[in-house]
């Protein structure tokens, strides 16, 4: 009895202090996260536009109209399709690239490790605008480096950023190059946590390198891969800067991403209501994607 009462009191006391200590953080989250999110959610049911800034009476509640309009909006579907195209291709490719790079860099046979690690990581910390200018020249149809290289294989020049078919692959290639270094560092950290003895034991049992990779590296890297997978998914769904700078969504809207469309509607044309609706659709997609990934890992 006594002990349970004591426990109860301490529980209450610690709860109080808990709230006191957490309140600054909670307040900040409330003001800078929950209130804006809730107001955006409410806004998505209105026709908030530039006129609303002049006079609040010009705002109408229009229920689900914004969401219905989205389903009727060909540009929204194009943007959604492009974003999925990007995530589905660039996501796995980026993870494979960073895992490969991490394994190669962790190998004892690799020389100049820190040099390579630095070179692979450098794109991550370079300003995208500078990178984009360089890549625009690499992709130039007439005197670009990529077409020059391809010409040795007898491939005729491709208008990388100007052809609706090739623009997205070009963006994907650049996005992978720009981002895989970050995941690589996380994978390297993950690889270092795998005890060396496991490999030694496997070698004694006669395992070859594929066996070791398949039965030791991959399973033990699973938590890292899950983390990298979710972070990449969330990041790639928010594709914005690359097409914004390289192609402005073109040609023929073939690189228009959902975030870019949202930005245009919201901050270029001030259709805040419509833009908020797009934001919540994107939120739902990312949320569902992350949940599915988590569930899949749990079932493993």
């Amino acid at each position, binding site marked *: 009895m006594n002990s349970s009462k004591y426990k109860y009191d301490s529980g209450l006391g610690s709860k109080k202090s808990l709230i006191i200590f957490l309140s600054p953080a909670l307040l900040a989250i409330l003001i800078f996260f929950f209130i804006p999110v809730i107001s955006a959610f409410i806004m998505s049911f209105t*026709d908030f*536009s*530039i*006129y609303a*800034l*002049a*006079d609040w009476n*010009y705002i*109408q509640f229009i229920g689900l109209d914004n969401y219905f*309009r989205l389903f009727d909006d060909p540009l929204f579907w194009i943007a959604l399709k492009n974003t999925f195209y990007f995530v589905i291709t660039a996501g796995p490719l980026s993870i494979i690239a960073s895992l490969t790079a991490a394994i190669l860099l962790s190998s004892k046979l690799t020389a100049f490790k820190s040099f390579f690690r630095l070179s692979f990581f450098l794109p991550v910390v370079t300003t995208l605008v500078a990178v984009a200018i360089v890549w*625009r*020249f690499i*992709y*130039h*149809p*007439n005197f670009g480096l990529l077409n020059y290289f391809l010409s040795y294989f007898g491939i005729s020049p491709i*208008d*990388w*950023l*100007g*052809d*609706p078919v090739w623009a997205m692959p070009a963006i994907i290639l650049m996005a992978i190059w720009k981002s895989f270094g970050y995941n690589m560092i996380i994978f390297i950290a993950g690889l270092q946590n795998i005890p060396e003895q496991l490999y030694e034991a496997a070698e004694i049992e006669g395992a070859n390198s594929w066996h070791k990779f398949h039965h030791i590296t991959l399973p033990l890297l699973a938590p890292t891969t899950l983390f990298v997978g979710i972070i990449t998914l969330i990041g790639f769904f928010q594709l914005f800067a690359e097409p914004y700078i390289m192609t*402005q969504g*073109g*040609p*023929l*809207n073939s690189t228009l991403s959902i975030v870019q469309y949202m930005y*245009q509607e919201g*901050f*270029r*044309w*001030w259709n805040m209501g419509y833009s908020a609706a797009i934001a919540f659709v994107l939120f739902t997609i990312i949320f569902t994607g992350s949940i599915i990934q988590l569930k899949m890992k749990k079932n493993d």
Partner: protein
Amino acid sequence: MYQVGKIAVLFLIFILGCANSENDPTVLKFWAMGAEGEYVSQLLPEFEKENPNIEVKVQQVPWTAAQEKLITAFASDKLPDVFQLGNTWVPQFHSLSAIENLSEYVEKSTSIDESNYFPGIWDTNVLDSTIYGIPWYIDTRVLYYRSDILKKAGFDHPPRTWDELYEISKSIKKVLADKNKYAIYLPSNEWAPFVIWGLQNNATLLKSNNSYGNFSSPEFKEAFAFITKFHKEKLAPIGMTEVNNVFQAFKDEYFSMYISGPWNIKDFKLWLTDSLENSWMIAPLPAPTDEYPGASLAGGSSLVINSKSEVKQEAWKLIEFLSRKKVQLEFYKLLNDLPAVKSAWMDSIFVNDKFLKVFYTQFLNVKATPKIAEWEQIAFSKIQQYAEYTVREVMTVDEALAALDKDINEILKKRRWLLDKNEQ
């Protein structure tokens, strides 16, 4: 004794402080964009000398973020007293009731007079027969052309009519005989030429008090079909990625004609040097009929007063100062912005410059785009989008213009609702 002295000193400081604050000059906040914002401060010492009780605080706003910044400033009640607006933005800020009606100021003014401005440019600042902005500097689009290549193609003068433009283009393509060289550059991410052609053909772009799209009208359709013909017949390049640098491309004969504004004169002069120095020129735009020159766009920037400013008289004084002939000329010398006041154009620099003479002729025939808040969105997102769809032959002219009207009607839904509401 010591104490008393200390108090006396403090009192003295207090008195001086008060006196000082009474003589404090009125602070006038002024926002200007890009290069204008950078250079205008060089003109202001003279203004402050004439008006010792006014202190102008200039803030430079980058062009790319200007509209966003201004609207955010409006939403948070932080707009400056006087600011620069691209003249197509005037309707937007008018619809927000953010800018002051200047009719009375102009009426009373001894220095600003409507007759001293190009009518087409002045008109862009007039909404419901009321003036909201005073033109500061102006621009319009003309035809840049390579006279040497036109000569090679058998023409000793720039095109005066649409038909002639087409003929010249075909000849250039034939003479240069290179699949990587084009006659004219009409990129679909520049809406201006597409709209200019429509305006030249007397198309009404929007109908019913600017509340519905009217791009399917026969006039616009004819103009749009004409201009997109250049792409379809490979007289103009379809893509935009080949041209990383228009100056280089113009020099390399990638294209021989280009429709652009005064801001490019300086760079074309820099790129086309030595033997090419006299190989290019500019001309007013061709016309659909024989009435040369054809109309162009009335562009430029205006100065406006914040309707909530507490120092409107001072703000107006600054606008008057910046509109003086002498100041406008100085401004031109600083950064080549073309003066809005006509009297400045009578100066010897202007009369003797072969390029400026062309601009003067063109300014006499300029037209405004529809003066509604949504115009920017219609032009930059929708017209460019459907121009690209047509140029790349994803859609026919008819399909593209019908889809354009449909999208515009969706954009203008709110405007129609407001018009209805205000009628009741």
